[in-house]
């Protein structure tokens, strides 16, 4: 069956189309103010990528904070459910899912059938989400990708007080004033964020294997800090930001339950 999943997130709208577990196409757009238009645009991109017509999709499931905006969805799942379904398909051996998005971090423990056993969501603070690294990259006046990369070259751990995404900027500025090397600051930023995420993940109990998904999984600096904190290697799929959409599509097709 050809099915689609759409993930209407805080920052992006993502669509994924699959057939019998094989990904046919993906589309992603930055969320603006007109949700209807964004959803349409994301669909168009995904259909174009898949090279199929819209009517080929038999079923559509929605997920993400804005899932109720998708009027023609056949059903909807929460981000927690969709994450678990997507990861269970990609990594049946995964027992812990860590999803770090732009404004939210989540940790989910799943059983051998991919069923959600427990979950934790970071509480009301963006310091444990992508927005934090973005703000820090801005303070350092470097692109986000660069922040991840130079962080890997650091050899020194500098403690940083990651309380708030905005105050984090002042901390970065004060590290700059203290003549701390940029690569060490980059690492401090990722360490601080990893500490928060690990703290949250420990609430559900970190059981191997651990899958890391969400846009922040593409930040190599963060991944390194997180692995150091968790004292294990995490599994990261090729398109970590599309796992929720994948999960929704698989649930729609009945491949995941």
């Amino acid at each position, binding site marked *: 069956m050809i099915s689609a999943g759409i993930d209407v997130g805080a920052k992006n709208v993502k669509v994924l189309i699959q057939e019998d577990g094989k990904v046919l196409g993906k589309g992603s757009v930055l969320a603006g103010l007109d949700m209807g238009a964004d959803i349409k645009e994301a669909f168009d991109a995904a259909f174009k990528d898949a090279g199929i017509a819209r009517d080929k999709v038999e079923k559509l499931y929605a997920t993400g904070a804005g899932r109720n905006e998708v009027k023609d969805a056949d059903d909807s799942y929460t981000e927690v459910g969709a994450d678990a379904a997507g990861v269970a398909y990609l990594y049946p051996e995964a027992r812990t899912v860590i999803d770090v998005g732009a404004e939210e971090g989540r940790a989910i423990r799943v059983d051998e059938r991919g069923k959600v056993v427990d979950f934790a969501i970071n509480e009301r603070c963006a310091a444990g989400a992508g927005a934090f690294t973005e703000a820090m990259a801005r303070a350092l006046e470097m692109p986000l990708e660069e922040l991840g990369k130079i962080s890997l070259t650091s050899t020194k751990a500098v*403690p940083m*007080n990651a309380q708030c995404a905005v*105050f984090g900027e002042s901390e970065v500025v004060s590290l700059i004033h203290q003549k701390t090397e940029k690569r060490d600051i980059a690492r401090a930023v990722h*360490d601080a964020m990893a500490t*928060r995420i690990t703290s949250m993940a420990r*609430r559900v109990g970190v059981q191997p294997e651990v899958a890391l998904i969400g846009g922040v999984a593409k930040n190599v600096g963060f991944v390194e800090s997180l692995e150091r904190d968790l004292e294990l290697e995490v599994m990261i799929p090729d398109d970590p930001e599309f796992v929720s959409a994948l999960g929704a599509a698989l649930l729609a097709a009945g491949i995941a339950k």
Partner: protein
Amino acid sequence: MIDTFQERYENRHEYAKQWKDKTGGKVLGYFCTYVPEEICIAAGVLPVRILGSHEPQDVTEPHIFAMYCPFCRDCLAQGLEGKYDYLDGISIAQSCLHIRQAYTSWELHVPTDWSYYLPMPHHVQSPRAVPYLLAEYEKFKKALEDWTGNKITDDDLKRGIETVNKDRQLMKQVYELRKREDPPLSGLESMYMVVSSQLIDKGEHARIVEDSLKELEDRTLGRPVGQRLIILGSENDDHEFIKMVESCGSTFVIDDHCTGTRYFWDQVSLNGEDPLTAIAKRYVNRVPCPTKDWPVRTRVPHIVSLAKDWDASGAVILQQKFCDPHELDIPAIKSALEEEGLATLFLELDVTVPIGQFKTRVEAFLEILDEEDLF
């Protein structure tokens, strides 16, 4: 000599392990200064206060909800990370709810042979408190005897009292010297002195204090004293913070912390009484933690007189974030100090403090106190 305190403070774990090897005795980790060290020492046990390390950690989130104070989380983290694996037992005397959680979660998740909850009464202003505490001390003493296999005699208790009293009295002598126009030691140094007393053998500590007294006789800071400050509030062994304040042109000359005067200010007075009663009276009547300072706030006039006697011109009021007992006293303390003409600066402590942000406030505060006429 005075540097020894810092050295002991920094190497507390090594010290305790060596003490065990050397004496074969048991080490008891305790969570609050209401635990009667006199009785522990009488039992031949080394009581060490469990403190945090002021380092970021990610292990306590599953155990303590984030609205409790950073100090209790920092303490628990030490246990969960195995830094206190040499402890033979743990104990807490009933005080605030926050630190109690560090104790109970420790008991649940850190393997410990012996654990004792001592229900120290809160209504210390009631005449009923001493008899109640005395009965609890009898139980505590018995439990210690069963645990260590050592019978605790009245003579042992008297020795415990003398040992602790002597250290208290010597530290008070050091504090007297801080009244000088040019105090012989900084706030940071005296913090190391007091906190190390909570970490090492009391007799040894007293000997080091005694030797230090000679050294302090004609010592000066070797820098301008600057503004004379009192520092007060909840638990505080944040050396980075104290160092920062004292590097901005000021000196702490006196304090009211449980890592400072509240810990050692009051002596046990035997006066022919049986030793356990004497100890109970001391803990009931000591300078209280705010959890126990009701219905009358006895700490307020005490703090004001400390500030006056040590000639402080300003007060830094510190509080562990979320520490409700202190938050409930601070408005009263602040207005009492201000009535006496002392300016106050209020700051909240976390596991680590944002030094940059705090420095601006501290400097601005010192600028207020500064008499230099630039206007």
